C-alpha cells in the first residue's frame, strides 16, 4: 500500500478540512467555550455535527451501525482537530471508546454505541494512576461480588470524565499491581453509586477528572471482553489512542507551523521581513522537515495498525515519540518566532503550545515511547 491517502481518503480529508476550518475553528470552539468557562470543555452542538457527518461512528463496525473505517481515516479527522485545536470528545469516544466496545457484548454495544454514533453520548477512558502514564502497573481493583464486581481505586487524567455517559476503566481482577495478566475492562455508567469526580481544568482548557471508585457495584454485563484477559484489549485501546494522539499532534504542528510562516512573511524589523533572515529560514526549514517526517511516520503506523501487522506496535511507539518531538519543536519555535506577541493570549500560537503539552502527556510522552522502542527492539 503506498504511503499516501487513496482517493476515498483524500476526499474525506477535503470534506473534514473544510468542515473543521469553518465549524471547528479556534474562535468558534476553543476560545468560545474557554471564555464561557464551559464545564465540559467542549461543545455538544459540534459533537452532533460530527454525527451528522458520519464521523462519530467511523471506526465502529458496519454491523454495529458504524462505517467500518480504519485508523488512517480517523487520523485524517484527528489531524484537522489538531490543526484547529478543536475541543472534541472524538479521540476518547470515537477512537478509544469505540475500539474498547468493539469486543463488548451485544448488550453493552447496544447500550452505548447508538448514542455515540448519534452524537448524543460521550465516553471517557480511565487508565492512568498517578501523574505519568504507566499502564504496566494497574492497582485499581474489582473484586467479585455476587453476580458482578465491586470496583475500588483511583484514576487520573480521565479526559472529559465528568461529561461522559460511561467511563471505560482498566481494573485489576487478579494478581498483583505490576502483573501483565489479571486486567479486566469495565464500562462504568455515569450514575453508578460510589463514583466521585474531582474535575479540573487543564492547561489547554480541556476538562479532566481525578476519578475515585469507592466500592462501586457493577453487574457482570459491565465487563468488556474477558475477565482477567483484558490486557490485549487494553493494548489495542492504547494503540488506537496513542496513534490518534500522534495524528492530532501532527495537526497541531502543522497549524502552528502555518501561522508561524505566515507571520515570518508579514512581520518587518530592521526594514525587512523577518522571514528574509537566514537564521529564521533555516530553523523554519528544519522544522518543516521534522513535521513531514512525523507525518509519514504516523501514516505508516496507521497503515500497519489497520493491516493488523506485527510491526504495528513498534511503529505506533515511534509515531507517538516522533510526533511529540516534532510538535514540541513546532510550538516552541512558533512562540519564539512570534516574539513578544507570541506571549499574548490574543495570538493563537500560545494556544498551540498549550494543546501540544496536553497531547504530549496523553498516553505516554516521547521519552516513554522511546523507551518502548528500545524494549521492543530488544535492548
Amino acid at each position: 500500500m503506498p504511503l499516501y491517502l487513496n482517493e476515498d481518503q483524500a476526499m474525506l480529508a477535503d470534506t473534514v478540512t473544510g468542515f473543521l476550518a469553518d465549524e471547528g475553528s479556534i474562535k468558534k470552539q476553543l476560545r468560545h467555550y474557554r471564555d464561557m468557562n464551559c464545564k465540559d470543555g467542549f461543545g455538544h452542538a459540534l459533537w452532533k455535527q460530527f454525527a451528522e457527518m458520519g464521523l462519530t461512528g467511523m471506526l465502529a463496525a458496519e454491523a454495529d451501525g458504524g462505517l467500518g473505517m480504519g485508523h488512517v481515516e480517523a487520523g485524517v479527522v484527528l489531524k484537522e482537530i489538531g490543526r484547529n485545536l478543536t475541543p472534541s470528545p472524538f479521540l476518547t469516544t470515537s477512537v478509544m471508546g469505540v475500539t474498547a466496545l468493539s469486543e463488548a457484548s451485544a448488550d453493552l454495544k447496544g447500550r452505548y454505541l447508538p448514542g455515540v454514533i448519534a452524537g448524543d453520548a460521550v465516553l471517557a477512558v480511565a487508565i492512568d494512576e498517578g501523574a505519568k502514564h504507566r499502564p504496566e502497573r494497574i492497582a485499581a481493583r474489582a473484586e467479585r461480588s455476587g453476580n458482578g464486581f465491586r470496583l475500588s481505586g483511583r484514576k487520573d487524567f480521565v479526559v472529559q470524565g465528568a461529561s461522559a455517559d460511561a467511563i471505560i476503566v482498566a481494573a485489576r481482577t487478579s494478581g498483583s499491581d505490576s502483573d501483565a495478566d489479571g486486567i479486566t475492562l469495565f464500562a462504568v455508567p455515569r450514575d453508578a453509586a460510589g463514583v466521585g469526580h474531582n474535575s479540573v481544568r487543564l492547561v489547554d482548557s480541556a476538562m479532566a477528572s481525578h476519578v475515585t471508585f469507592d466500592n462501586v457495584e457493577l453487574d457482570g454485563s459491565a465487563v468488556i471482553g474477558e475477565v482477567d484477559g483484558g490486557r490485549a484489549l487494553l493494548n489495542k485501546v492504547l494503540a488506537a489512542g496513542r496513534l490518534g494522539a500522534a495524528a492530532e499532534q501532527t495537526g497541531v504542528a502543522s497549524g502552528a507551523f502555518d501561522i508561524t510562516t505566515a507571520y515570518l512573511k508579514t512581520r518587518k524589523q530592521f526594514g525587512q521581513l523577518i522571514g528574509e533572515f537566514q537564521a529564521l529560514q533555516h530553523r523554519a526549514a528544519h522544522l518543516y522537515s521534522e513535521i513531514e517526517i512525523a507525518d509519514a511516520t504516523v501514516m505508516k503506523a496507521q497503515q500497519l495498525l489497520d493491516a493488523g501487522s506485527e510491526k504495528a506496535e513498534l511503529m505506533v511507539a515511534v509515531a507517538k515519540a516522533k510526533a511529540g518531538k516534532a510538535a514540541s519543536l513546532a510550538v516552541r519555535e512558533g512562540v519564539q518566532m512570534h516574539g513578544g506577541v507570541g506571549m499574548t493570549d490574543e495570538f493563537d500560537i500560545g494556544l498551540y503550545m498549550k494543546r501540544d503539552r496536553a497531547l504530549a502527556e496523553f498516553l505516554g510522552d516521547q521519552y516513554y515511547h522511546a523507551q518502548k522502542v528500545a524494549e521492543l527492539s530488544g535492548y
Partner: protein
Amino acid sequence: MTDLEAFRQEIRAWLEENCPPEMREPVRDDDDVCWGGRNFTFKNAAQKLWLDRCVAKGYTVPDWPKAYGGAGMTPAEAKIWREEMVRINARPPLSSFGIWMLGPALLKFGTEEQKVHYLGQIARGEIRWCQGYSEPGSGSDLVSLQTFGEDKGDHWVVNGQKIWTSYANKADWIFCLVRTDKTNKYQGISFLLFDMTSPGVTTKPIKLISGSSPFCETFFDNVKVPKDQIVGQLNRGWDVAKYLLGHEREMISATGGADRAGSLGATLGRNGALEDPVLRAQVALFDVDALAFTAMSEKFMDEVKVGKGHPAFPNLMKYAGTELNKARHELLMSAGGSTALEWESEETDGGALPRAWLRTKANSIEGGTSEVMLNVVSKRILELPGA
C-alpha cells in the same frame, strides 16, 4: 496469481540460480564493489560471472529500456527486483556514476545516437565515468564555475581545474560542466563528455581525514573536445546539472534510512555496549528518528513514483538523511569506546569504525551542504522571502 507475483517468482528463481554465493556476502570495502571500466580488475571469478549474467539480462540497469542495455522494467517491477536482491543480500552487479548520474541525464537530455552508444557502454560496465562539477572557487556556489571551453569550430579547447572528482584517477571518461559563454552566468555553461586519456588531462588524489582518497583534483590543459560530445543544448548545461543534482540528492538521502534496516540499539545492545543508561537513552531517541526517517523514505519513494510531492523535496530528504547518518556514527563511536579509536589493527578491520565515522562528515557537505539544502527548502517549498 497476479502478473507482479508471477514476475516476483520469476526474478526469485533467476536470482537463486544465477547469483553466486560469494556475491551474497556483505560488501566490506571499496574492493568488493564492481565499478567496471577499461582498467577494472575483478576481485574474483564470481564477481565477473555475476556481472556477465546480469549484463546479458539487462539487470545492471533494470529500469532502463531494453534498447539501451536495460531490462525495461516498470517502476513496480524494478521495486520487486530491488526487494528480491535485498532478500538474498545480493550485491549490486555493477556500481557506477554512469548508472546513477550520467544515465538519467542522457535518458532525459541525450540524442538517440548518444543513448545507444553511451548508455549501452554504461549498462555493460565498459566505461567508468566520473563527474566534473566542483571547482576550488565554486563549491556551494557551483554556478560561478570558471573552467572554460574555447570554441574552435569543430571542437572546444578546455582549460581549468575541477576538484572533488570522485575516482577521477580510475575513471575512463568524465561528464563535465564547462563554461562556454563568459557573459551569461546561468546560461553560459555546457555539459560536455570526454575521455580522461585525452592529452592535457591530469589527476591528483586528495587524502581525506578518513585516510582514504576517493576524490581527486583534476586539471585540464588545452584538452580538445569534439563538438558532438555535448549533452543537451549549448550553454544550457545548467539545466542538465540541476536535474542531475536532484538525482544525486535522492541517492544520498537514501543512505540515511531505508537501506539500513533495523535499529541501532538492537545491534549495539547485542554487543553489550549500552550499559550506560544515558547512552542507551540517546540511542533510543536516535532509533525513533531513524525508524521515522525510514517511513519518510518509503513515502518519498511512493510519491516520486506517481509524480506527487514537491520537486524540491529531495533537498529535504538529503538534509534529513545525511544529518541522521552523522548522528548514527557519533553514537557508534561513543558505544565503541577506546576500541573505536584504533586506526590500524586487525581486530578493528583496519580502523573501519573511525574511518567510516570521519567519512560521514562529508555526507552533509558533498552534493550540496545541509545549509544549502535548508536554503532551498525555505525558498522553494516554504516560499520565504528574500534573495
